[in-house]
């Protein structure tokens, strides 16, 4: 393994003319990707007057944090941030466990019911939840899930489990069946095998899943607005949406709010991207 990596490095370390072309492509692409981000950051420090009248290209006159203070208050950030973090973290953790279990049982059972349940799950990827929000709400209300923390987490799980199972199933080839068989001979129960042997092996896959889903859930608007809409239970994304209303939007605050809402998830990604790529490399994309 180590040797393989070494070989790779030596092969790819030569900075030839081809690499120069690639470097130029990447730098110009980075300019394209970074400049809107830079504009957001720059706008978030501008005063209303600067945004309305000033040159959009110019830098903010001073590094004033008023917009951030306003955003903090208008978004009720103390509440909404903790809410969003709570919903997101619980949902992704439960999803990781459920999807792992579902994918593994599907992979280990050849009978028709389990095969069918895979396709049953996959249908979920195709369902446009936006178009179904009335029946989703009706079912949520009848089951007492509306305006509860558990309710929105339930819905996040329901709407994301399909993708999770799809992803986890593609990792299953990386779980060696030999270990499980050995454990079975030792008298291990199915639960024992899953929680003691399979789950640890699925860690990189779960890390991948958690990263891929956490920012989707963090940014979700539909389910949050349906299931936790009171001010006490609100999420950041729902609060931000209110800043972009039809008439007379408060853009200075909105831009600061965007930065605030993206920052935590950005830090999460930057600190975990190593595991993410590792997880992806190990399983999903090998097919």
């Amino acid at each position: 393994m180590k040797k393989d990596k070494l070989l790779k490095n030596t092969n790819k370390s030569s900075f030839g003319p081809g690499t120069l072309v690639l470097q130029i492509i990447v730098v110009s692409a980075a300019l394209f990707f970074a400049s809107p981000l830079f504009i957001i950051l720059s706008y978030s420090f501008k005063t209303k007057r600067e945004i309305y009248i000033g040159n959009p290209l110019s830098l903010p006159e001073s590094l004033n944090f008023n917009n951030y203070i306003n955003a903090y208050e208008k978004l009720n950030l103390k509440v909404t941030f903790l809410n969003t973090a709570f919903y997101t973290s619980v949902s992704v953790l439960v999803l990781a466990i459920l999807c792992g279990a579902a994918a593994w049982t599907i992979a280990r059972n050849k009978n028709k019911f389990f095969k069918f349940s895979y396709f049953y799950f996959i249908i979920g990827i195709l369902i446009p939840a936006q178009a179904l929000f009335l029946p989703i709400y009706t079912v949520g209300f009848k089951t007492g899930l509306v305006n509860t923390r558990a309710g929105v987490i339930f819905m996040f799980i329901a709407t994301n489990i399909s993708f999770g199972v799809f992803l986890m199933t593609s990792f299953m080839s990386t779980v060696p069946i030999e270990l499980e068989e050995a454990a079975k001979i030792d008298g291990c129960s199915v639960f024992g095998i899953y929680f003691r042997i399979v789950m640890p092996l699925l860690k990189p896959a779960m890390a991948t899943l958690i990263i891929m889903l956490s920012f989707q859930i963090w940014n979700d608007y539909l389910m949050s607005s349906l299931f936790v809409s009171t001010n006490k239970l609100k999420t950041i994304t729902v609060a931000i949406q209110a800043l972009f209303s039809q008439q007379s939007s408060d853009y200075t605050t909105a831009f600061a709010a965007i930065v605030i809402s993206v920052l935590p998830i950005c830090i999460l990604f930057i600190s975990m991207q190593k595991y993410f790529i590792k997880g992806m490399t190990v399983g999903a994309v090998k097919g």
Partner: protein
Amino acid sequence: MNTHDSKFKKHDRIQYLILLLPGLIIFTIGLIIPMLLGFYYSFTSWNGMTAEKPFAGLSNYYRLFHDTYAAQAWIFTIKFTLLNTILQNIGAILLAVALDSAIKLKKLFRTIFFIPCLISALVVGFIWLKLYGNVLPALMDYLGKDINTMLFGRDDTVLAGLIIANNWQWIGYWMLIYLAALQSIPQELYSAAKVDGANAFQQFFFVTLPMLAPALTICIVGITTGSLKVYDLLVASTNGGPGRASTSIIYYIYSTAINGRQYGYGSALSVSLIVVLLIVALIQLRVLKRREVQL
């Protein structure tokens, strides 16, 4: 012995079921039952408000095939999906290959490319409205160029404008998947190709691309199903306009079912969308999986 074995198996199966069922139940309650309800509403002329939901037979489905606005929305959505699928895959593969080479500052670039997908699509739409409408004109002014950058303002450029915005948001995401796939290609394959006298391009086409096939499956299915469902991007940018030029099928469903208070017909439109998504995904999986096997 045999009875003991089957008993044991039964016991096993119950445990397997216990592992599978929680997810299955949550999924069924949260998504499948609402979908079935939506299917039922599609046979009514319900306005989404009253208690009674008058049965309307197949009339909603009949209307479906005579609705020029729906046809217009389908055409936009399909164009958007096709262009996205092609451009995002090419862009993502290109950047992934570049980031897998010997270039400098890989990690920094990787992060820059990825950040846009962390922003919600609604906000992305708004940012690009501002970019096309304010920032780029100021830039053209500064450069002394007379180029109209207001892509959202005309019905023949609005599609291009949205494609650019959508690619900006998602290329980095798919790039990461390709990057992971690239890094799992065994180095020996390249060495062997070199021994056979393959140049860099030949290596790319005969070694790299075939090995990317599984990743390609994930990305193509992901991009097409995602693009067919485009909605958030339009809400704070073009509002589906100018006129109806950028009204996607979901945007149309939403404005018909909710704003237009024709929930029954909106449900019929949703059903048609689910059917199309199902067909597209099945075809893609079948074709792509077959190719994977061949390669």
